[in-house]
């Protein structure tokens, strides 16, 4: 019998460590023969802390939202052999949401103990690298990746085999392999999940890639804000070295030896851009270099370098163990395999989901994510984070593949999906993302440094009710210029949230500018609170709650709001029990 506690950063934040301690104590007290273990994150953040129970027959029962009381109850129920009666057993609906997914890169996350190499090996780990070294040439490895159709999961979706091959073909004997674990997209955390939940998958993927391109040294550039990921990577690397996978002649074949080290980055979004990442690795300020030359030609210290994303690498062992065909069998013609998405925003079941490419947006959001929180109406989904764009309801049924997403003006990006409901103001949303890129711009090139600031200022103006006719056109013009003239991907995509919201929600912009109204009632400066004298009973509760004494009126008489004093905090709207306060 075994109990396994999900201990990713998300689980720990929800109280998994506490649950673990209680379980430990209770098991001891009960004297039952129950083993206790840890695993990474299964992706269902809204159900954390999650504890799996595996009985002697191998049957698994999942408990969710395990607080101290539940933890105690679980052990009691196990001892009494009545686990199914526990109230916190996962619901069928949530089980189904898990069943609809297809897990390749997250195959071990939430299942094995990331700090135990044996569990990775038992699940088939390090078989792929053995096959590569013993049976395949580097060219054959690259061919297998080509057959798989794997494309980079870090943003641009470049064919992975092509990058491997370019680095392999690049002249020189000293080459480097870099893993991009900077994961700067706000809201995206699939890379962290792999690092924390299955670090050996990344390590094995990197060894295979190193063998394929002829790089004997690898570096994992991981953001310092991921301490648990760094800790588990360090443990995994030490174990891998002990077993002879790192720093030793692999399988005694005299063919290949690979070393790996971690570099903690200070956490700037732009350092996820590959050339800025290289600058940072070399100890410089993280600012992008012009491309070409590409890293495959001139990378780390001017040597041919291949950079891939964590999720990309995590797919590689699967491909080499099961064959490129097995991977290519999943997904669509132009987009093979699976993709992990981070569901966030106004969605019922936020978290990580891994689905076959080609699934519709609707199926992901409603089928797996459970739909919109509080059952409000779906308005749009922002895909690709601050570099991406919004996709409105009319495209809910398009398949999620690189080409289809790009056609909408959004991008696949790293897989962030921020869901917006009818209460989201699209201008405000665009402003939020612009504020992010503006702050994260490195400031090197003129269009991005100066241009994003001006776009942000215009958006601020519009949301404050100071927009003027012509602003939309000016935003579009400036946005297109920044996209076409900036030095790096940050600037080249910075305007996407603005351009797509203008494309699909132009009327909202116009309402802000021409009518000085925010249709979603989010832009404070454009709201007016009024009291309907017909409905007002003169209970005075609004006046007593108004923090700036903008409301006047005597008991049992209709009250009035002085718009010059009102700061639009909405308190009166909240407290009125007669629905007399309205907001426009």
């Amino acid at each position, binding site marked *: 019998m075994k109990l396994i506690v999900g201990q990713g950063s998300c689980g720990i934040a929800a109280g998994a460590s506490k649950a673990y301690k209680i379980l430990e104590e209770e098991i001891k007290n009960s004297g039952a023969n129950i083993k206790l273990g840890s695993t990474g994150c299964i992706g269902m953040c809204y159900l954390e802390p999650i504890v799996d129970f595996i009985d002697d027959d191998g049957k698994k029962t999942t408990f969710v939202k395990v607080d101290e009381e539940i933890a105690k109850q679980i052990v009691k129920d196990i001892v009494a052999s009545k686990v199914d009666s526990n109230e916190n057993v996962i619901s069928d609906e949530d089980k189904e949401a898990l069943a609809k997914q297809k897990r390749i890169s997250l195959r071990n996350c939430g299942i094995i103990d990331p700090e135990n190499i044996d569990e990775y090996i038992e699940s088939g780990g390090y078989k792929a690298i053995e096959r590569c070294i013993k049976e395949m040439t580097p060219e054959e490895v690259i061919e297998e990746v080509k057959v798989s159709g794997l494309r980079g999961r870090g943003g641009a979706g470049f064919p992975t085999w092509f990058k491997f091959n370019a680095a392999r073909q690049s002249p020189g004997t000293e080459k480097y392999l870099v893993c991009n674990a900077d994961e700067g997209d706000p809201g995206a955390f699939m890379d962290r999940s792999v690092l924390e939940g299955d670090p050996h998958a990344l390590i094995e993927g990197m060894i295979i890639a190193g063998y394929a391109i002829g790089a004997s040294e690898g570096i994992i550039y991981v953001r310092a804000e991921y301490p648990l990921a760094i800790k588990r990577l360090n443990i995994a690397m030490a174990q891998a070295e002990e077993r002879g996978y790192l720093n030793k002649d692999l399988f005694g074949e005299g063919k290949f030896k690979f070393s790996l080290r971690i570099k903690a980055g200070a956490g*700037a979004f*732009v350092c996820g851009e590959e050339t800025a990442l290289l600058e940072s690795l070399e100890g410089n*300020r993280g*600012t992008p*270099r*012009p491309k*070409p*030359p590409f890293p495959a030609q001139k990378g780390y210290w001017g040597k041919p370098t291949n950079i891939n994303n964590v999720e990309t690498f995590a797919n590689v062992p699967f491909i080499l163990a099961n064959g490129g065909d097995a991977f290519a069998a999943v997904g669509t013609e132009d987009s093979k395999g699976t993709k992990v998405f981070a569901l966030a925003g106004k969605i019922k079941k936020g978290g990580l989901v891994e689905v076959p490419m080609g699934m519709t947006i609707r199926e992901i959001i409603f089928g797996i994510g459970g739909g919109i929180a509080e059952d409000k109406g779906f308005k749009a989904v922002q895909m690709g984070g601050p570099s991406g764009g919004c996709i409105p309801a009319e495209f809910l049924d398009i398949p999620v593949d690189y080409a289809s997403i790009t056609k909408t003006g959004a991008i696949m990006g790293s897989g962030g999906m921020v869901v917006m409901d009818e209460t989201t103001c699209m201008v405000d949303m665009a402003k939020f993302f612009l504020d992010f890129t*503006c*702050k*994260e*711009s*490195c*400031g*090197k*090139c*003129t*269009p991005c*440094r*100066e*241009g*994003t*600031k*001006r776009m942000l*200022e215009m958006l601020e103006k519009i949301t404050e009710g100071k927009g003027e006719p012509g602003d939309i056109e000016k935003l579009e013009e*400036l946005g297109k*210029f920044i*996209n*076409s*003239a*900036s*030095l790096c991907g940050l600037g*080249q995509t910075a305007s996407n949230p603005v351009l797509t919201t203008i494309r699909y929600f132009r009327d909202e912009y116009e309402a802000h500018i021409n009518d000085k109204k925010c249709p979603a009632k989010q832009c404070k400066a454009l709201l007016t609170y009024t009291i309907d004298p017909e409905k007002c009973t003169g209970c005075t509760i609004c006046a007593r709650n108004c923090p700036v004494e903008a409301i006047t009126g005597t008991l049992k008489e209709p009250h009035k709001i002085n718009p010059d004093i009102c700061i639009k905090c909405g308190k009166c709207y909240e407290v009125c029990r007669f629905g007399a306060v309205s907001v426009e």
Partner: protein
Amino acid sequence: MVKIEINDVTYDVPEDFTVLQACEQAGIDIPTLCNDDRLVAHAACRMCLVEVEGMRNLMTACSLKVSDGMKVKTHTPKVIEARRSVLDLLMSNHPNDCLTCEKSGECKLQDYCYEYGVERGSFVGERRDLPPDESNEFYDYDRNKCILCGRCVRVCEELQCTHALTIDNRGFGALADTPFRAGRAESTCVSCGNCVAVCPVGALLPKREKRIRAWDTKKVKTTCTYCGVGCQLELITHKGKVIGSKPVEQGEPNHGLLCVKGSYATDFINHEERLKTPLIRRNGVLEEASWNAAFDLIVSKIKETKEKYGSNSLGGFTSARCTNEDNYLFQKLFRAVIGTNNVDHCARL
């Protein structure tokens, strides 16, 4: 050599050329603000954008290497519009100070705004508003005029190797400055002035006593008199007086660099105590003399001494402030003409 097509005309250019160099060779003007051939390509200002067939975005001519069959368009409406936008954005965060700016007349930003018809920045909003750094003895930094081309930082780092400067902060707040913006005096700056020489705008300027318009000055190319390297510099003169100097942009031996003396130690030229003629001591008193008189005296003394006491009774001591060529001839004179190896120089300043 590779073949490259620029504006529908085919050119043969060396394969290690950038598109910018290819355009220069073809006599096509490409505007640049951050480019400096001596420095690693920076591609930051985005003035040199051109259209390259097959590329999604506009490309920077300064960083893009030519390749065979490449097709470049340098002045399409899209390119012109992009350059105007760059200037518009720069001017929207720049004081419109050309009327009183010391750089006026030799400012690249001003010239391009003129060429591309950008009268002023069209975006209203925040502007950089920082105090100037006037802590250096020889030059001032007007932070509000900096356009972040990064040339000062890079010349200080890559060529001067002093690393006194950095790009501080990021995004709209970024600025070329000393670490923590503590000011030049608090930095490792050695006042070589090479940053001042490369600044394309009026952000970095030598301190000047009088306000003198660039077009009222004359530049005279000469060799620096401070040491044997023989740096090429231009003395800047106004009404017959030297008011400053700057390195000659290209060429041996200094490739556009100077040290603090070449850059700023020109004041002595107009000093009232400066010697302007040779002096001959007569009856214990130094008296002004002509060059001919001085040389006659030297020659006669050397001859006299050599005849009386032999060659080795003479010794020559020259100055490290003479050029290499001067010093070469001087030792030649002593060894071959006078016949002694007694020759040395101060070798320090």
